[in-house]
């Protein structure tokens, strides 16, 4: 029995050390740095900080509100009605959500909207429509339609039913979706860096600028702390509403979609068309603008400043493979610990492993630069990029494997034990085969996350190991229409790669991309 205990300890220790050293420790260093040297210095700096903080807050609030309003028609259409192409429409709405932020940034640059608040807000809506459609739509589709009908019979007009019955019942899901969208837009980096120009910066962008461009590390640390406070608040709101969400009764177990009749037929068509147009225009324009003569050929030519742009694809793919392997290894071990019955570590693990998802990517990258000089200096290491990506991706692996592991009845394992399997063999013969597909899906998610990751990579990528998002950003920030078209072309390549992996995940029949 002793060896079993040691084995378990080892399984728990690996993910614990990983999260501890690459996440909690750098975060602590940032906190110490920010708190010990919290001096805002000159008044002009302070004024800028207030402006950045205020902008971060209000753009996130307005983005969230706009997303809720603009996603409402689509949410209504796909949750209430069954029509031909409903599944396809829902899948298409999810596409922007999995797109790399840099690609979305390029798409809006292609639209000619750069350096404006409007572009930032539009890009945020584009990104997050799926969050609202899925989160609110799931609840809405399961509300008993008799509640609506009862309201109508009792003398309420359609609008009154919506206000007095539907809206109050949807409130938990709306609040959960709003806090997620707020979290994403509050920590928005790639989109704001590309579309905000010098005038508009979120805390996330400002941390990057202070640390990388102006080398004011203590100020960046202070900003990171402010950022963490905001993120924690949004996460807290989310988990609170999640709990209430779960307590909503009077839900059907299946969706109750009906064929649209009368004027609803037209409204459903209009809602779906409006939303699909909203999300397809930026992508279509991006592709169109990339088709400039020489843009794709230019990706293969050596450039004095940025090197051969297409070589970034090789880097990205290599990093994505390594990051997925690390994420699956760590994620599966963590899932084993989390699902172990009566394990005391279970809950603690579950929460801690989710943290990197909520923390901003920039903070993770910044933490690496600040903290990973001890015990050996890793800051110039090749491994930093894949490790940063794995850190962001581990929650996805955990989220896909834990439910599958939990679904294995305890008796299955007990039966194997009685038949003479050692604990290790039980895991090997029962758990591993059953969850291997879930782990594969988790790995694919990790791959997508790694391909698109920009916030942390911007800090830790070395000039000669630029990933595609980093290369796109470099091309975008260079003057000249030639490099702009090349940026668009590389964005299309990244878009294509991402789409391939996402399609493959879909083929694995694991459905629900981006279920929260």
């Amino acid at each position, binding site marked *: 029995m002793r060896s079993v205990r040691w084995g378990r300890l080892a399984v728990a220790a690996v993910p614990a050390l990983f999260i501890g050293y690459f996440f909690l420790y750098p975060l602590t260093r940032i906190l110490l740095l920010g708190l010990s040297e919290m001096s805002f210095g000159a008044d002009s700096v302070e004024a800028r900080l207030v402006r950045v903080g205020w902008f971060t807050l209000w753009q996130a609030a307005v983005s969230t509100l706009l997303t809720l309003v603009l996603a409402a028609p689509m949410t209504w259409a796909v949750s209430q009605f069954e029509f031909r192409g409903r599944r396809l429409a829902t899948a298409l709405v999810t596409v922007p959500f999995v797109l790399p932020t840099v690609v979305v940034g390029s798409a809006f640059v292609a639209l000619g909207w750069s350096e404006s608040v409007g572009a930032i807000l539009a890009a945020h809506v584009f990104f997050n429509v799926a969050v609202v459609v899925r989160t609110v739509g799931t609840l809405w589709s399961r509300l008993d339609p*008799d*509640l609506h*009908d*009862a309201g109508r*019979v009792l*003398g*309420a007009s359609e609008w009154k039913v919506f206000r007095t019955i539907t809206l*109050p*019942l949807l409130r938990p899901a709306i609040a959960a979706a709003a806090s997620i969208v707020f979290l994403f837009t509050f920590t928005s980096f790639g989109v704001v860096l590309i579309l905000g120009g010098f005038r508009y910066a979120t805390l996330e962008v400002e941390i990057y600028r202070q640390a990388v461009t102006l080398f004011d590390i203590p100020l960046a640390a202070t900003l990171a702390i402010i950022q963490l406070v905001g993120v924690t608040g949004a996460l807290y709101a989310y988990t609170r509403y999640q709990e209430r969400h779960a307590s909503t009764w009077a839900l059907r177990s299946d969706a109750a979609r009906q064929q649209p009749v009368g004027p609803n037929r037209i409204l459903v068509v209009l809602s779906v068309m409006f939303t699909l147009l909203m999300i397809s225009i930026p992508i279509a324009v991006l592709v169109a603008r990339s088709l400039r003569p020489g843009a794709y050929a230019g990706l293969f030519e050596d450039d004095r400043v940025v090197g051969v742009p297409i070589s970034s694809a090789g880097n990205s793919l290599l990093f994505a493979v390594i990051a997925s392997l690390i994420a699956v290894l760590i994620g599966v071990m963590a899932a084993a610990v989390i699902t172990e019955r009566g394990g005391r570590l279970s809950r603690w693990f579950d929460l801690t492993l989710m943290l990197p998802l909520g923390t901003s990517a920039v903070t993770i990258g910044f933490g690496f630069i600040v903290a990973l000089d001890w015990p050996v200096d890793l800051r110039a290491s090749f491994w930093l990029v894949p490790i940063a990506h794995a850190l962001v991706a581990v929650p996805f692996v955990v989220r896909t494997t834990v439910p599958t592991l939990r679904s294995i009845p305890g008796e299955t394992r007990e039966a194997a034990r009685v038949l003479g399997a050692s604990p290790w063999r039980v895991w090997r013969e029962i758990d591993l085969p059953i969850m291997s597909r879930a782990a594969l899906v988790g790995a694919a998610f990790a791959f997508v996350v790694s391909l698109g990751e920009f916030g942390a990579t911007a800090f830790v990528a070395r000039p000669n190991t630029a990933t595609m998002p980093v290369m796109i950003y470099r091309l975008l920030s260079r003057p000249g229409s030639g490099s702009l078209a090349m940026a668009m072309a590389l964005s299309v390549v990244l878009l294509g790669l991402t789409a391939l992996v996402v399609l493959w995940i879909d083929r694995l029949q694991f459905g629900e991309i981006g279920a929260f």
Partner: protein
Amino acid sequence: MLGVHDVSVAFGATTVLRSVNLTVADGETVAVLGPSGSGKSTLLRAIAGLVPVASGSVTWDGDDLAAIPTHLRDFGLMFQGYALFPHRDVAGNVGFGLEMAGASDGEVSKRVATALEWVGLSGFEERPVAELSGGEKQRVALARTLAPEPRLVMLDEPLGALDRALRERLVIDTRRVLRAREVTALIVTHDREEAAALSDRMALMRDGTIVQSGTLDELLAQPADEWVRDFLD
């Protein structure tokens, strides 16, 4: 007086109601009796204006209701699963129709209290509906339907979801409440005893159409066909 004239309803390619004819006189209680899936609930929904009528007409005192939307018809409908609003307490449910009619707060609470008295649930105003038992939910749903005093009360399997002992008690209570108010009522059920106990007259429904109507005695004495005789047997 309610009139249903040659009403047909179709969902896509499937016809759910075929040329249904039915009248309910003022103060009369009619039960539509039929096996599940025969289109009874759809008939109530068509009368309420919740599902569009493909052909034929629904009238009140001779006036066609086609252009009148559901919320302006002044009909009541008690749903099979009750459809109580989970985010409102008992008073909030029972008073909903009165609120929609624009009654003052004082008026609403007075009439909610009266309606709860009818169904024997006085003092239940502030109870959350989630905490009610099955029988209490049925009564709250009945009170909610009756409170605005609609010109027609429709009940969809009013006792269908309850266990046998409770049904026998509530069938008596429900009849008492309906009779005392002298309401015009249309009840849908698959249970012969329930139909007989609650109504003055019944209409037998099969495959989306009314096969025969009359009092239970008339139907038993002269069944229109084999199916009617077997179903009532």
